[in-house]
């Protein structure tokens, strides 16, 4: 069976926006079977199968090649797939799901404005406190790459799967790497973004797997869907 498998976010704003952009492109996605199920179809496109998955699973399945196409955030692609450019290609920026991945420190660290300041503050912290400065995040890989590029080495990441912004205030971390869309939560938790601390400006992307087994039919279908979505995003062009 040569079918194109498309991964679509299974809940929330991300799912609604995804279904909306597909609909605008003339690709109506409907659930098949039970309304609470996780399988779907594209009306009039029998060779495509839709799977409703969490955004993180979509990134993972694109990496392994279990699905051909998917909609997910660039932050998850960069975080979860070490050699992302070899495993997947980001075909279209979809214009929703905007979120920046940022480095934030306590606002009271008046001496720390840049990553270079953080490097020095981290080294001094380790010498003063006998252990490394902790950075709470659910993005350890993005953090490591960005910190290494800025020469920050005296720190350790601590895993944080929710309410990351609160970690410094409750003494679980000194700094954080997290997504932020408004910045209001940061301020409420006494945190501030470093002036050169934007790791990634992320949004939802249409992503193709380079590792999925691709027949001629799926390849053409994949190109058609991409083209239709592209036209829906930029009607004039």
């Amino acid at each position, binding site marked *: 069976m040569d079918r194109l498998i498309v991964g679509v976010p299974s809940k929330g704003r991300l799912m609604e926006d995804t279904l909306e952009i597909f609909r605008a492109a003339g690709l109506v996605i409907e659930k098949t079977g039970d309304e609470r199920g996780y399988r779907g179809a594209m009306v009039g496109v029998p060779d495509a199968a839709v799977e409703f998955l969490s955004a993180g699973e979509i990134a993972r399945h694109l990496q392994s090649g279990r699905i051909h196409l998917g909609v997910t955030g660039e932050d998850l692609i960069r975080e979860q797939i*070490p*050699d992302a450019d070899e495993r997947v290609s980001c075909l279209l920026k979809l214009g929703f799901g905007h979120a920046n991945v940022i480095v934030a420190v*306590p*606002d*009271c*660290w*008046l*001496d720390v*404005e840049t990553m270079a300041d953080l*490097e*020095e*503050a981290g*080294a*001094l*912290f380790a010498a*003063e*406190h*006998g*252990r*490394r400065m902790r950075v709470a995040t659910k993005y*350890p*890989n993005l*953090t*490591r790459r960005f*910190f*290494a590029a800025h*020469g920050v*080495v005296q*720190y*350790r*990441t601590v895993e944080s799967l929710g309410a990351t912004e609160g970690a*410094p*205030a409750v*003494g679980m971390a*000194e700094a954080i790497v997290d997504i932020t869309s408004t910045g209001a939560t940061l301020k409420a*938790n*006494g*945190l501030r973004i470093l002036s050169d601390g934007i790791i990634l400006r992320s949004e939802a992307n249409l992503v193709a797997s380079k590792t999925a087994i691709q027949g001629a039919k799926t390849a053409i279908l994949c190109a058609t869907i991409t083209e239709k979505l592209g036209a829906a995003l930029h009607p004039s062009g």
Partner: protein
Amino acid sequence: MTAEGAKEYEALEAQASSLITLFTSKGYEHVAPSFIQPASLFLDRIGETLRARTYVFTDPNGEELCLRPDLTIPVCRVFLERGAPEGVAKFCYNGPAFRVQERPDPLSPREFRQAGIEYFGSGSHDADLEVLALTIQAVRESGVKSFTARVGYLGLFKALLGGLNIPPRWRERLERSFWRHAGFSRELATLAHAKVNAPPMPADALTERGFLNRLDANGIPLVGLRRPSEIVQRLQDKAADAKEPPLAPEIVRLIENYLRTRGDVPTALRSLEALARQANLDLGDALEDARALFYGLKALAGTAPIVFEADFGRHFEYYTGMVFQIEIDGAGVAGQIAGGGRYDGLILALSHGMHDVPAVGAALHTERLLAATT
């Protein structure tokens, strides 16, 4: 190793047993630390780069554990569990270590063996040279005929910075960035152009009282473990930096020339002495100390080709003194069969400041060693 054939397994075992025989004959006690280690100890010490490559897991009791990515820290723990006895202690080991690999291949397997030695309790160059000599002997007795030992000495770099007219904080910045080639050049360029000079804060935050008032006035809460005194100290330092002139061009040139020094032992020593003389630099005892190391190296160079490289020793964050790597010429990563160096701060850190014990050690990559000799 994905799946070793019985023949290869036997060969590795035979090689390991002759390495251990050699090490024990030289007075190194054979120890076998646990494969599974407490994660926090490693995570606090090893840095995020190696951490990203460490298999960390939580067992059903909720304990955070890891598969040892390296044997040095586990052997240090053996030493500490014995109460860090006075005098010297010498250990040798052989066994598997585990690292996450983006793409495992025979040269960088997830599971590999390490054999090595650790020498605790002596900060002398005699100990440095003993460890280097024994590693060279182990490589040679394993059947490798043609190799080079690259040697660096971090003590000399620190002494050089210490002898130059540089503000202490800038010296620390340069020492810290020594580990990163690109970062170091960038740091040196920054200091040479005095880009450090943007005054960070108005003068009113440069005292603890002023700092706290400022937070109060702006509704900024005190968050995190850094104390106001630490923050104010750094604000004062930044303000002082702003008044410093940039690094003099001749100092920048001297540092760059030093880092370019390389060659066989007599040549390297001559270049270093010439460098110090031309710059009219008083390195104090440091040059004497370096000479002692170099004379020892010269004696060793009769048994193996040794190349000194002033900038060698980068990428090994916890080393503090002499560092070395033994390489089969022209074989790339596969040819890096052994390496080691002095790591005087590690026992102090692992014992939370209880035991300040100098240490030097070396490890052999046994799969590569076997591949090079069969």
